[in-house]
């Protein structure tokens, strides 16, 4: 319990640090959100700045923003008048969560299949699968996405190239996000499978002549899962937040696209809102991952 409370204090500190960094980084950036292609008359600019409280001293702005953020209010978006940051996040977050969740599930399934293949197949297939998994890790998601759109949407016309309409539009984006982590996870899983196979308890179980299916699942696969599980937290976090590349490509109205647009538009409240949501997600996923490891592996719980 003491560990949990100290971890929570760490999370609070993290949130504050990220808030402060993001605030000052975005305020010290040259230009302001209302400098567009058309030059505004100075009076209008002054009015706009005053309306959004951007004419006040930076320290006052910071404390004001911090006070509101503590109450869970990130204010209104600069570039989408009439929409609050909270509304925009509430609309976009479920989309990103769905996409990230599906991608996480896919990468797990692929990783378990490929990992078993590496560990249990013959030497030749195993070597091939190993190279395959390693190569998957090197595939950038934005490249996978564009190439898959080129092949499956433009050329073959099988799947929609963009937008968020039904399960068919989930396939390409989730695949382009999940293949690289799948390769990495597969390597991790295969390594722990091989370790388990040479461990004394597995050899003993085998020597006892335990039925092969029970042996496979109970004595080989289950003890080998902890490596995979310990990555799930950070991986889930990176899939949820890393979707901003893929969402921009597929024009999916998720949090990632909101984030990229907010950065391009210098929409301060929106940048702050999305960054904080990301940070919370990351912290929660990392914490959840660590506790999951303890639940799955009694050896760690005993420590």
């Amino acid at each position: 319990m003491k560990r949990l409370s100290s971890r929570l204090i760490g999370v609070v500190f993290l949130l504050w640090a990220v808030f402060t960094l993001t605030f000052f980084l975005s305020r010290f950036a040259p230009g302001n959100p209302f400098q567009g292609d058309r030059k505004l008359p100075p009076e209008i600019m002054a009015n706009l700045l005053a309306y959004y409280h951007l004419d006040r001293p930076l320290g006052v702005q910071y404390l004001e923003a911090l006070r509101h953020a503590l109450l869970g209010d990130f204010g209104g978006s600069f570039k989408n008048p009439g929409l609050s940051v909270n509304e925009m996040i509430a609309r976009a977050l479920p989309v990103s969560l769905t996409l990230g969740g599906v991608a996480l599930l896919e990468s797990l399934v692929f990783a378990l299949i490929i990992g078993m293949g590496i560990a249990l197949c013959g030497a030749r297939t195993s070597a091939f699968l190993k190279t395959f998994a390693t190569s998957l890790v090197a595939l950038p998601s934005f490249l996978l996405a564009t190439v898959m759109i080129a092949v499956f949407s433009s050329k073959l016309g099988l799947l929609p190239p963009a937008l968020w309409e039904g399960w068919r539009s989930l396939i390409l984006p989730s695949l382009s996000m999940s293949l690289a982590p799948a390769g990495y996870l597969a390597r991790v899983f295969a390594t722990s499978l091989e370790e388990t196979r040479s461990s004394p308890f597995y050899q003993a179980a085998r020597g006892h002549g335990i039925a092969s299916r029970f042996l496979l699942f109970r004595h080989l696969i289950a003890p080998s899962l902890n490596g995979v599980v310990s990555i799930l937290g950070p991986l889930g976090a990176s899939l949820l937040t890393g979707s901003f590349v893929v969402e921009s490509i597929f024009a999916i109205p998720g949090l990632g696209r909101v984030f990229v647009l907010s950065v391009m538009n210098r929409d301060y409240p929106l940048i702050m809102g999305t960054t904080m949501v990301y940070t919370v997600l990351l912290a929660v996923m990392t914490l959840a991952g660590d506790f999951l490891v303890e639940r799955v592996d009694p050896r760690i719980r005993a420590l």
Partner: protein
Amino acid sequence: MALTKGSAGLRRLIFLVFVFVVFFGSASFLLSPSVMNPQAQDARQVLCPPGTPGHFLGCDFLGRDNLARLLSGSTVSLGIGLSVGVLSTLFGAVWGVVSGSSGGVTDQVMMRILEVWFALPELLIATILLLLLGHGALAVVVALTFGGWMGVARVVRGETLKIREQLYMEASRSIGTPPVRMILRHFLPNLLPVMGVLLLFRIPGGILGESTLSFLGLGISPPQSSWGTLVNEGFKALPMTPWMLAWPAIAILTTLLSFQWLSQKLGEPK
């Protein structure tokens, strides 16, 4: 047998393409613009197919030579990747060495800062930093360096702690060697192999970061070309031609795959 042989052959081919990309990519700025100008537009040659005389890889939608654009883009992307790799490895290593060798409160504080930094994904940090730095190659290098040094720092600190426990370090401490001299004489030479391996991971990381940012329009901005902007343009031109996407995609893939296999080879105990 055929399976492994086939994949080994493919690997060799990909490696060969990578060597070509690196060689010509790094030599391209030596070519005079009269031979190869990535910005020269030829309205009669818009979207000419690969193999057109004078345009070996075809032309883009403005009639610019794909080969020239790919090569100048390779210079930018490889240069940024290399700079980010070297700088982030150095920065991370210095952080790790100072943190690990000093111990105590300094170590605690430096690790806390590292943890905050580590909690955020590389691209998120880089994107927010780019707000401050604007566009251009230098901005991208700085943003990605500060986005990606944390892994290096963590590994180097771990190694430093290991070195600190060695007997010769105790001897050195006992005769009162000043800390800076300890770092230069004892820690750095022992850390160099690890830093080499980390560098091999960081360079492709930098290349990937640059191309992703530029692809999204946050990094290098057109008309300057980099692999990221080229993929972006190729993606937009997809209804008209697949080639503009194919060339930079091949360059990125061969480069990243080669680095991946190289570091895998080094990681395997032989």
